[in-house]
């Protein structure tokens, strides 16, 4: 996801609090739309897209914090930050593995041997990094995070 999603309903003359709510809700839905793909883990683009969406969401929340009640806002913000961080660990390894795989083709047979070893080492680390991410999603589902988040931000306008 290289470009921002279009947020329907925002306009220059509308109040900030109305637009802030619409942006945060849209970005949240966008972030969560990648969750199943991220859990599956077969295609690395889902983790990337979800992480980028979570960063966009955090940027919006950083900017618009003063539009919302401090305590519920803080709780939701921390959860989004945890999502970004947990996914970051997986994404960083995906990027490294992809890069070293691409480099493999440019190396001699002897050189390829130790880079292949490094790739396998990183793949093991990736499997380990995926566990807290999948656990986090399970916990968020169990605590009904999505509904609570949307109820809070949709009720504000």
């Amino acid at each position, binding site marked *: 996801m290289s470009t921002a999603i279009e947020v329907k309903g925002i*306009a220059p003359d509308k109040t*900030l609090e109305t637009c802030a709510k619409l942006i945060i809700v849209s970005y949240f839905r966008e972030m969560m739309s990648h969750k199943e793909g991220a859990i599956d883990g077969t295609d690395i683009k889902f983790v990337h897209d979800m992480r980028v969406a979570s960063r966009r969401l955090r*940027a919006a929340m950083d*900017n618009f914090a*003063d539009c919302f009640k401090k305590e519920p806002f803080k709780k939701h913000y921390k959860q989004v930050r945890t999502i970004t961080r947990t996914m970051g660990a997986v994404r960083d390894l995906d990027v490294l593995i992809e890069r070293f795989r691409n480099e493999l083709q440019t190396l001699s047979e002897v050189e390829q041997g130790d880079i292949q070893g*490094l790739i396998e080492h990183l793949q093991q680390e990736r499997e380990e990094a995926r566990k807290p991410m999948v656990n986090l999603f399970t916990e968020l589902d169990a605590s009904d995070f999505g509904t609570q988040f949307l109820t809070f931000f949709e009720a504000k306008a």
Partner: protein
Amino acid sequence: MAKPQKITGLNPKHSFHENARTILPQKVEEVYTWEQFIRDPERREELHNMRISIKRLRYTMEFFAINYDKHFTDFIETIIDLQDILGDVHDNDVVLEVLTEYKENRQSAELPGVDTLIARTSEARNADYQAFLERWEQLSAAGFKQKLLTIIAS
């Protein structure tokens, strides 16, 4: 990673456009707090922090773009360009760190592939850093910051 600077002066009951003029200059200033470090290629942490601040500015500009004319998009493109170059610098820094650590943990082994990639990545890192610096200086000479602040205030 440095925390985002707290935004001040918001008025939630005022218009989206008016608040864009309050928020965006603060995000621009956050980027420029890192400028003092960028001429030292070894300031990896600060270069990384600048990239993160640029990313925050980009995302903020994107959702405020509706308040401005088409020319505003050109500024977003420039910001994305800077983010990409600094992203390449950072990616190379991370790759070098991983390769060096991997090598250190296997002290007795010969790792020709790792050595080749360390040399290649160091070269790419230097080239990306120079490209960033040149782009930055070019934008500074063209008065990019002032032009950006002027369009934000419009």
